[in-house]
């Protein structure tokens, strides 16, 4: 049957998503949810392309992370509806031509915040060494020849690098607690992430679909 029109979307999305793109996303949502009103984690199992992704777990987790859903409370949601789905998708909006400095800056911060949440799995606002190691291990998972030691040393090396950027030279008995969001922003200063972290829709002039 005909999909019902989506509810009025939040102003976050008003910028770049056209009604056709929302329609497409709605159809995709219905496909994933199997015509239910909400999606649960299990629904993401039906995407073959996603099976290969080593950080699949973290990506799916990000959809249910209440911090990303802009909800006041913390923790994980059990299920999300279409509006939540659009909220998460909005983190991957491409840049618009007519954005000014302030908008661009906010844009960038949003994307980096999303990424930060992906690392910070215990939601305490800091990326600790253990959390970092988890991410690296997940990225390298699936290769039985790679020992845990290699993964660990990669993580440790990277963490030291991060610490040196953020805190400068550390004293011999100083312990670096973890990367906060401000440090995270500092690390990515000058690097153009906006063009790497987006999904751009093509201009689809379909007036009607026949199937």
């Amino acid at each position, binding site marked *: 049957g005909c999909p019902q029109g989506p509810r009025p979307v939040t102003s976050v999305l008003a910028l770049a998503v056209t009604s056709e793109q929302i329609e497409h996303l709605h159809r995709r949502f219905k496909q994933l949810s199997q015509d239910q009103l909400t999606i649960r984690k299990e629904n993401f199992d039906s995407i073959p392309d996603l099976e290969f992704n080593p*950080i699949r777990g973290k990506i799916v987790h990000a959809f249910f992370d209440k911090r990303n859903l802009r909800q006041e409370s913390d923790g994980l949601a059990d299920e999300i509806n279409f509006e939540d789905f659009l909220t998460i998708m909005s983190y991957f909006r491409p840049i618009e031509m007519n954005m000014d400095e302030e908008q661009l800056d906010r844009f960038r911060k949003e994307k980096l915040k999303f990424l930060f949440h992906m690392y910070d799995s215990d939601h305490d606002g800091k990326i600790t060494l253990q959390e970092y190691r988890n991410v*690296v291990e997940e990225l390298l998972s699936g290769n039985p020849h790679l020992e845990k030691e290699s993964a660990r040393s990669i993580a440790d090396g*990277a963490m030291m690098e991060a610490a040196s950027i953020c805190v400068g030279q550390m004293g011999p008995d100083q312990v670096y607690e973890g990367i906060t969001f401000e440090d995270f922003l500092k690390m990515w200063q000058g*690097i153009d992430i906006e063009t790497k972290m987006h999904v751009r*829709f093509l*201009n689809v002039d*379909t007036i009607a679909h*026949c199937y």
Partner: protein
Amino acid sequence: MEVVWAVGQVGAAWLAVVFGLIIVPSALGISLGISEAYMWVLVKTLEWATIRLQKGAKKPQPQMPRTPTANGIIERDETPMEKEISLLHRADFEFSHIFYFCRKGFEAIVEDEVTQRFSSEELLSWNLLTRTNVNFHYISLRLTVVWVIGVIVRYCFLLPLRFTLAAIGIMSMIVGTTAVGQLPNGRVKNYLSEVVHLMCSRILVRALSGTIHYHNKENRPQKGGICVANHTSPIDAIILTNDGCYAMVGQVHGGLMGIIQRATVKACPHVWFERSEIKDRHLVTKRLREHVADKSKLPILIFPEGTCINNTSVMMFKKGSFEIGGTIYPVAIKYDPQFGDAFWNSSKYNIVSYLLRIMTSWAIVCNVWYLPPMVRKEDEDAVQFANRVRSAIARQGGLTELPWDGGLKRAKVKDTFKEEQQKNYSKMLVRNGSVG
């Protein structure tokens, strides 16, 4: 009483017209030009409709990149993984890798390459068939009138006509092949069986209002060879037998299909397997090998994808067909979706509703390319050979190649395939990043 007489007269007149104008010429292989005229009118009407629709949609569109919708609606970055990760490379490598995988993950969630292939191709413009017209808004009175006329023409005129033709075609196939089957084996029988098969195929193609363009006829499959083609619908077989005779391979069905199978196998050595036999791969290969070894037998027709794909891509070819040996004659079939969608989504529609949709479309227009024959090289195994043939077919038909298994329509990704991919990534990471 008079009413019955009148109806009888009309019925008889109708049949006479159908016979005279359609069946006899098509059985003899000549064309009266009626189909060409019909197609010309159709094309003109659709062009007009498209122009009206474009005028009607007055929204100014922002300038964004365009691409045929056959391959998806998001812009995919085709940079290979290594290049893209090294571009972002800074001292800490996993941050850059995480961008890459994040984006790939989101792309997969918005639209995955596989599921897309199991739903029909979307058209850029409307072809006046409102199978489901989600976005239809009233554009103009003229367009609506034309659409209504279109519905009436299709359902009240074309459908009964096609149904009659199909019925006649199937019946003559059954009767004809049974009759030929009574003859003793020999050259006469083979010749007559070919004649009967060709005639009935032509009638059935007319029943679908099919317009088929055959290219490179000099590469047509020869006796003792194996013909492989991409699979979009059950009609594929009729499209190919319209131009040559093949020995079909398939499972024994019940009902009408079963009757046809039993009748045709009397005249021509088609290879029908019982359901239990299909499971035994060695048995299947053995029987097919015997058939191919006999050079006087007609070429076998096989669809190695194993299931219907929506004609925008070619999925993995099952290697079984390529282990038999012999010469492979690849054939690429590409339907034009403008006039009617030939794809059979077997999980969504059953065969009857599928045939109904086909018979109420405007026409089935397709291109068939016969590719030069291929033989397996010595250092190639069956899988590599299968991929080589698949590339040739995809390139000719303008289809994309996907390494996926058509079985994914119903099942999940095999673990072995998944692990392969993960290993590739890890290997590359260690090479590039462990210095970090």
